[in-house]
């Protein structure tokens, strides 16, 4: 599904990713953890095609295609979805209109006819229910004035609408209350199929209790420095990152 080889990226003169290697197979759930500023969000942004970051070295293949050669919108249409750590507010752009455009662009890419208004509304209602999204929010501008939790819900709701193959969830749990965390996680799990993969970026065990990872990575200073099974989560929760840093220094 996704293969990242020796990925380096910088912003301005500052190198942030310093050689990331990662392979995600269909159906797998990977968790990426790591201290603040390690480069986790940078990695997701680079995968999603954000242009402020310059890829200086490395390759990324998504379902056999050279992902880095595609513009952001085509990556999305190919099936890469990123749930933003900080979803952007877009005043003036109506949420429904925004979604309709996004869904139909996806369909067009696949050679499908645009959804009729009725079918679209039906789909929307269905997916809203999935994450218990307040329908009133749909009449507002994209994310404008949404609470922190509402924004995160809206991200997963969009994911449900777009049915991606690879979802990158960047700290989707932050801002969600206890109930919302459960609902959103269940939503993510419901959307999972043996063909889709998920990368979950988080600082806490609570999310991974719901979305259970197959593999856990620690990203530190622009590199993946540790990869293990799900038991690593509990260890990190208990001990923090210092021991990993020490381990690194010893090498």
């Amino acid at each position: 599904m996704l293969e990242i080889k020796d990925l380096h990226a910088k912003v301005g003169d500052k190198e942030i990713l310093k050689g990331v290697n990662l392979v995600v197979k269909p159906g797998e759930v990977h968790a990426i953890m790591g201290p603040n500023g390690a480069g986790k969000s940078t990695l997701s942004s680079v995968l999603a095609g954000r242009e402020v970051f310059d890829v200086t070295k490395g390759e990324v293949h998504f379902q056999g295609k050279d992902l880095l050669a595609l513009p952001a919108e085509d990556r999305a249409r190919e099936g890469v979805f990123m749930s933003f750590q900080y979803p952007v507010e877009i005043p003036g752009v109506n949420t429904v209109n925004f979604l309709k455009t996004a869904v139909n662009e996806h369909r067009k890419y696949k050679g499908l006819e645009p959804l009729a208004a009725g079918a679209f509304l039906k789909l929307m209602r269905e997916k809203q229910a999935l994450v218990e999204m307040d329908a009133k929010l749909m009449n507002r501008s994209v994310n404008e004035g949404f609470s922190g939790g509402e924004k995160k819900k809206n991200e997963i709701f969009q994911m449900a609408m777009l049915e991606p193959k690879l979802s990158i969830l960047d700290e989707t749990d932050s801002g969600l209350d206890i109930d919302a965390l459960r609902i959103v996680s269940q939503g993510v799990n419901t959307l999972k199929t043996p063909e889709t993969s998920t990368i979950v970026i988080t600082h806490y065990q609570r999310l991974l209790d719901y979305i259970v990872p197959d593999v856990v990575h620690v990203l530190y200073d622009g590199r993946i420095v540790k990869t293990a099974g799900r038991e690593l989560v509990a260890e990190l929760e208990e001990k923090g990152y210092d021991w990993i840093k020490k381990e690194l220094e010893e090498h």
Partner: protein
Amino acid sequence: MSVEKINKDFQDLFVQGKELLYNGVNDLMNEKREIAFNRFIEGGIPDKKNENYKNTDLSKIYERDYNVVLNYHRQDVDLNDVFTCDVPNLDTHLVLTTNGWYYARNHELSGLPDGVIVCSLQEASIKHKDLFEKHYGKYTISDNGVTDLNTAFAQDGYFIYVPENVILEKTIQIVNLMRANADLMSFQRNLIIIGKNSQAKFMVCDHALSSVNFLSNNLTEICAEENAVVDYYQLQSQTLKCSLVDSVFVNQEKNSNVLNHTVTLYGGLIRNNIFTKLSGENAENHTYGMYLTDSVQHVDNYTYIDHASAKCFSKENFKGVLDDKSTVGFTGRIEVRPDSQQTEAYQNNNNLLISDDAKVFTKPQLVIDADDVKCSHGATVGQIDEDALFYLRSRGIGAKEARMMMVFAFTNEIIGKIRIEPIRERVAQLVEKRLRGEDSHCDACKLQCNK
């Protein structure tokens, strides 16, 4: 050609055309004409030395030779037949003007409530003399030659009177049509009076139907009496060869509520002067504007909101998208007079630059002489927000479409201020078409605009 020469030409025109100019209207109108003309001779058309005309060089448009019609010219076709600018789902009273004159073949408006008058200004000046004299010229401020030029040369236009306690359900749609075989300069003067406790809505469209050069100097006075509610929408959709200097003077009495909304879709040079005087307590004013410019268009909005009375509220917002080599000016002055306590006045001007060569000059001003006030203004010049653009693209929306959505979203705030739904939808449609580079003129216009 110099400003002196332009001023001299106007003097000659006035002297030569005097007989025609004074013909067919009421004495008061001619008295004011004379005064305005004498003042014009002293000041002339505003040049670049005039602070309020720093952004717009009127001499460029006035130096061309135009024909001036000093009496009504018949059109060779029935404009009612060739021009139907209908807004879906909106039933309106339609009034046409041509080249500054009230169109002689306007259909009789049926179903107007008792006492409502819709007629030509000339007719009103004679038939409704008292009403006319009570209001004509009372709300204009002649601090620049543009106003005086209109008062000196305008002979006709429309007159609308809504008596007390009348709620006019239907929108009155006024379509100002410019149509001629040769370059033409016109002056149009309108007067709208909305009586106590009455309500009325207006939709004014400026269109050009021929591809010659036009220069219009239009002036509208609007008086909203106590407790009146007035919506005044203006849609400016002309051609690059058109120059329009449009002045609207609004006077608001106690508890009145006026919405003044101007959308500039297209034109060559457009200068809007919007003066609002809040004369009575608790008056509320909303002034909004939007301009979409490309090519070598020039749009300059000048607004002046005078809080002459206490406890009034005003909100103003102008937004524009500038493409190609177009240039834009904005001046917004809010004045709060010494005793106008408990004033609230807000103003905003935002500009989106989407080409390398577009230019904008914006000058908001607050002049505040009372202390119990809440006033603010803001002005921005910027580009499309890159973060938002990326967000849209990351959801699969193409870069071009995403950009469109962002620009449209930027203008949406202003469109959303339109209080009549069918008009709001219609304007949204026209704006979107305009932004997509499709012809934005009303679909219904079957005429020769683009030939």
